[in-house]
């Protein structure tokens, strides 16, 4: 049986020869533009068109896109920014990098995205911005955050790093706040052959400030543009994007149907099956108290898994000084209980059945082994 790693193996293999030819052409292009050239402009135009955003600004990484967006909406030294306690380091790290203060708020225990009610209680008179992050398969409740931002006079930066192509109420991810951020690193939904990120916005001022900072026109700029080969590759990978996401959604549906009895038996919960607006399929995570045993069981059967964000941001040494005595039980619980299983588009139906059988087999034996 072939091994089924967690991250999609050889996902770009069919692009290999075309990518080599593309790199050769960039090297031999008389214009000799390697960063922020015509391919980057074309990608920015495509992303604007696809998301409906007036402006798209492509930069070196998803993290730098977030930093550009935060600085552009006015996060300055001393400014408080409400961020989720469960997520990747840059959500808090980029705020600190700008001299701001991350204020953590807990996530919804079912959908794992920033809980609007928790975020609201974290707002103070010093709060400048709130940063809901879309997680795994669920967009944050953006209508609620829009209302909150409006009512409390905050700016809203939408962290759509993993949600390129998702939509809520017919409006694209990235379009709900003053600025939205995408990552295009290798394993993101629209992933590239290097690092890359994009800011989208409708606001003239935000766009101009992001561009000035990226292009090094400001002495305090975060700097760093996307390179031409990454942009050219992403333009190419857009072909087939919809089909890949459709296949991932299909696999997710099969998982959800197959695991329904385990959910009913109280052995598992499935964030991707919880009712929530703005569903997409980037990561398919299971929540179970027996996470580590399940991971070991799947590994024995050649199935790779991944634990996301095991330690909540406020408990990591880098950010503990911003957390005070606040507690984040939902972020703790999901950090201890999540296990993501493979959901890459190259899985065939047999692979999916194998993964389903392995998960079910674990819980069947677990049930048998339970003390009477």
């Amino acid at each position, binding site marked *: 049986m072939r091994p089924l790693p967690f991250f999609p193996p050889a996902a770009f*293999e069919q692009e290999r020869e075309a990518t080599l030819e593309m790199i050769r052409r960039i090297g031999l292009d*008389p214009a000799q533009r390697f*960063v922020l050239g015509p391919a980057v402009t074309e990608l920015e135009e495509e992303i604007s068109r696809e998301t409906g955003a007036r402006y798209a600004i492509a930069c070196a990484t998803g993290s730098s896109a977030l930093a550009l967006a935060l600085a552009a909406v006015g996060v300055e030294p001393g400014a408080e920014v409400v961020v989720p306690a469960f997520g990747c380091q840059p959500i808090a790290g980029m705020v600190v990098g700008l001299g701001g203060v991350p204020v953590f708020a807990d996530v919804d225990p079912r959908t794992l995205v920033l809980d609007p009610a928790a975020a609201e209680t974290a707002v103070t008179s010093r709060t400048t911005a709130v940063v809901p992050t879309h997680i795994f398969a669920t967009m944050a409740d953006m209508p609620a955050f829009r209302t909150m931002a409006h009512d409390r006079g905050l700016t809203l930066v939408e962290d759509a790093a993993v949600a390129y192509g998702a939509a809520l109420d017919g409006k694209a991810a990235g379009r709900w706040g003053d600025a939205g951020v995408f990552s295009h690193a290798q394993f993101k939904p629209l992933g590239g052959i290097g690092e890359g990120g994009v800011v989208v916005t409708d606001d003239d001022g935000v766009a101009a400030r992001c561009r000035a900072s990226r292009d090094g026109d400001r002495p305090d700029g975060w700097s760093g543009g996307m390179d031409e080969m990454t942009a050219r590759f992403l333009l190419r990978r857009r072909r087939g994007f919809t089909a890949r996401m459709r296949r991932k959604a299909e696999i997710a549906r099969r998982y959800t149907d197959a695991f329904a009895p385990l959910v009913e038996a109280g052995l598992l919960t499935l964030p991707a099956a919880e009712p929530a607006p703005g569903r997409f399929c980037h990561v398919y995570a299971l929540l179970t108290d027996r996470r580590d045993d399940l991971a070991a069981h799947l590994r024995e059967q050649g199935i790779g898994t991944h634990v996301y964000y095991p330690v909540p941001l406020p408990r990591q040494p880098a950010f503990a000084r911003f957390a005070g005595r606040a507690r984040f039980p939902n972020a703790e619980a999901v950090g201890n209980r999540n296990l993501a299983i493979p959901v890459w588009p190259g899985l065939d139906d047999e692979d999916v059945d194998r993964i389903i059988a392995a998960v079910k087999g674990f819980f069947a034996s677990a049930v048998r082994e339970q003390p009477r």
Partner: protein
Amino acid sequence: MSMSGPAVDTEWRVPWFDGRASFRDEWPDIAGRVRRVFDNDRFAHGELTLELEEAVGRYTGARYAVGVSSGADALHLALRAAGVGEGDEVVVPAFGPRSSVAAVLRTRATPVFADVDAVSGTLAPDAVAARLSERTKAVVPVHVFARPVDVVALRRITDEAGVAVVEDTMQAMGARAEGVHSGLGGAAGALSFAPWNTLGALGDAGMVITDDAELARRCLLLRHHGRTGEVPGRPSEVSGSAAVVGVNSKMDEIQAAVLLTRLASLDHAIARRRAVAARYTGRLAGLPGVDVPLTTDDQVWPTYVLEVDRRDALADHLARAGVQTAIPCPVPLHLLTGGSPGTYPAAEAASARTLALPVHPDLATADVDHVCAAVALFCEGGRG
């Protein structure tokens, strides 16, 4: 006014950078390495980045080399790893690249400017001494135009004050002073591999070089979000936790592939740059209103920079002759951040007088002669 001197071909084009001829030769090797990237299936910070770190370590003699996504990031991380942070002061030259100031501002420290030496254009040790305070944490000599800064003289001042020297070597990969590679005279050095540098990628990449194990360890942490213990391809059990607030600064594997190929022929490329620079100097020295750069044996010529009385007029004249030039520091750095004119006279003079000519390794002798003829026409023919 009648035209005198030799006529200049108006159809001739000399771009700032054109590496196509070298790229054609390098392509089979680069393609082979890019295939390895596909085989490894890892496109940022993987096997080729590690291989490049080792190769740059061997080439420069640095004990540690840490690959990052750009030269600007390299300087930023080196400063943070040297302990620079909020409330600190960092002395930088008033004449230099904006990226030096940006790297300091990103650490939340305050840049404090010092004037440059009127002859070399690099940070003047005496000027640095006058700018040190109790809050000074680091001094950033910039090897502007790859003229090695006299780090030994600088360290007599900084060592006594307990201040770290973090060198912004800019494009100066390959430059050595007294056998020590640029960037290794102080706590750490930042290398930039931007496309037109002596060692250039097909995009952005950079590296921190240092002999200090602890400083290197901190750079490793900082470049991956502050995560501890990550081994490429094998995230350790603690990789999900950040020890310090870091950034995402991975080197792209394809850029590492390009750089590995080019590092193997770097000395040859530098020899070509030296030949171009020597031809410029031979033809331009003595022209009225133009000073050719100081030439030392250890220069690697990432740029060839003239000092010119009527700089902007010469730049316009060269543009009309099809020659792309660059103004290295259009605005002195202290004026970008609210300082007053007249504070750093040497930096301000250098900023107003310097003009960089194309000097890449593929530049043909005929191109060099075209540029020289155009400069001579400007200087001697009274045009512009």
